[in-house]
């Protein structure tokens, strides 16, 4: 705590587009009282100072190289609460798509001739490296959810993370189901919390918030196949944001009824 009793907060970024931090900047502008509740000591997107005595660390981005691990462990050692901010930190997001290709190819596509310089390895969520206390999923994050998590942390509550799928929020909003108008949707297996924003605006959910804890993957595949998707197209939907999760679940053989 600072002398004024406010918890000190720091933001860190790893491999990502930094879109989530921009959403945070946005939230700070619409929720000015947030700045009265916490003190931000490190935030590359917004301030130039760097304090190292933070209690709450928000980490954005995936771990994509050996060197990231060291940095993550240092943050973990300092912070009493570590929050994975956004899909890249939470699920490795689209970064993990490269896991599907041999690493050498990826280096060449991305870095061209300078490939040898970079010690990139399979992208992983930060929870694969350090213990994570809370998650704010999404690509990008939902600003209301960010505020809810901050409030929960300040209250000493476990930060809320819905275990139910996007369909719940979608139905409560009384949206027309995407499957009824010939579109495809990953809502039934995707973790809610975004307010079903994509179906609300007429697009199928792409699963950016990761899967619910016990997704019925087989049934979801059947539904998509029934709706007319090819096997390849189904796999593409499953892996777009969730390559790391899908591989991890396969490795665990985790298929619950």
């Amino acid at each position, binding site marked *: 705590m600072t002398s004024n009793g406010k918890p000190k907060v720091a933001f860190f970024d790893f491999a990502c587009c930094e879109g989530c931090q921009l959403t945070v900047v946005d939230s700070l502008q619409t929720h000015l009282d947030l700045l009265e509740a916490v003190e931000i000591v490190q935030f590359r997107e917004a301030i130039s100072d760097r304090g190292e005595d933070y209690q709450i660390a928000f980490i954005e981005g995936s771990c994509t190289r050996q060197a990231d691990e060291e940095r993550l462990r240092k943050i973990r050692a300092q912070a009493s609460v570590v929050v994975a901010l956004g899909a890249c930190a939470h699920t490795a997001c689209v970064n993990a798509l490269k896991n599907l290709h041999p690493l050498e190819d990826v280096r060449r596509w991305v870095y061209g001739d300078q490939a040898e310089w970079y010690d990139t390895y399979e992208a992983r969520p930060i929870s694969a490296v350090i213990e994570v206390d809370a998650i704010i999923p999404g690509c990008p994050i939902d600003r209301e959810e960010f505020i809810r998590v901050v409030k929960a942390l300040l*209250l*000493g*509550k*476990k930060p809320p993370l819905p275990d139910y799928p996007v369909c719940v929020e979608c139905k409560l909003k009384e949206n027309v189901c995407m499957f009824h108008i010939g579109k495809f949707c990953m809502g039934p297996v995707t973790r809610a919390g975004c307010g079903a924003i994509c179906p609300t605006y007429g697009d199928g959910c792409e699963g950016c918030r990761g899967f619910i804890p016990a997704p019925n993957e087989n049934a979801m595949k059947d539904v998509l196949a029934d709706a007319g998707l090819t096997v390849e197209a189904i796999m593409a939907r499953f892996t777009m944001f969730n390559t790391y999760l899908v591989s991890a679940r396969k490795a665990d053989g985790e298929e619950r009824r």
Partner: protein
Amino acid sequence: MTTSIYTPEMARLVKVETLTALEKLFTIELPGGRSLGHSPGQFVMLSLLGIGEAPISITSSPSRSNGIFELCVRRVGDVTNALHNMQPGDMVGIRGPFGRGFPIEKMRGKDVLFAPGGLGLAPLRSLINQVLDERGSFGRVIILYGARRPQELLFRNELEEWIARPDVECLVTVDRGDETWTGNVGVITTLFPKITINPRNTVAVTCGPPIMYRFVLMEMLSKGIPETQIYLSLERRMKCGVGKCGHCQINHLYCCQDGPVFTYTQIKNVEEAL
């Protein structure tokens, strides 16, 4: 209309005692020292503003209420953690008492066998103390209590009193002992062979984690206690306490209204109960 079944009444914490590393005992006073008017086995919805609500059994006996009641609470999540951080003088919200408790009138004149496991002693303590306060109206009083480790035994002072009383047969066991423990070691079912009872005249009561009460019920039945004389208190997720939210359903039964206390007869064919 300005009243609602969901509005808690604010009540004052007057005492907080640490029982174990996980459990504390909270003494609560309603406004004006009004009595809660509960019967043993009932619960309240405990409300911490901004945090949430949790169903908690009333652990004090109505016979000792004096304008206060007690809750014995294990810290496991949001509400219970926040409660553990509170001090005497702080206020909590109370709704209730709710649910069906133990039918003490059906127990009068009978021998009573209590077999709580772990935190299951909390609801049973209310009944035990009421029985002890009307000791003359009951036959034998037998208490078999099991906890995982000696440090996890609740209400140790009272346990010692019960053990010391000549008119109470109280046996205590722990799953795993330690260097200070000289008593019984073993799960609670290992205490049953140590007692002989007159099953027809015995009423048996249990509460505890599912894995424990499944075995305890088997012991009680094998002792020959009639199914209608075996009572257990069940725990389910609860969001309203008044038969509306649906969370506590056990097949067609509502734990919050039809229970939390059930006879074995009531639930033996209810698939989701056991």
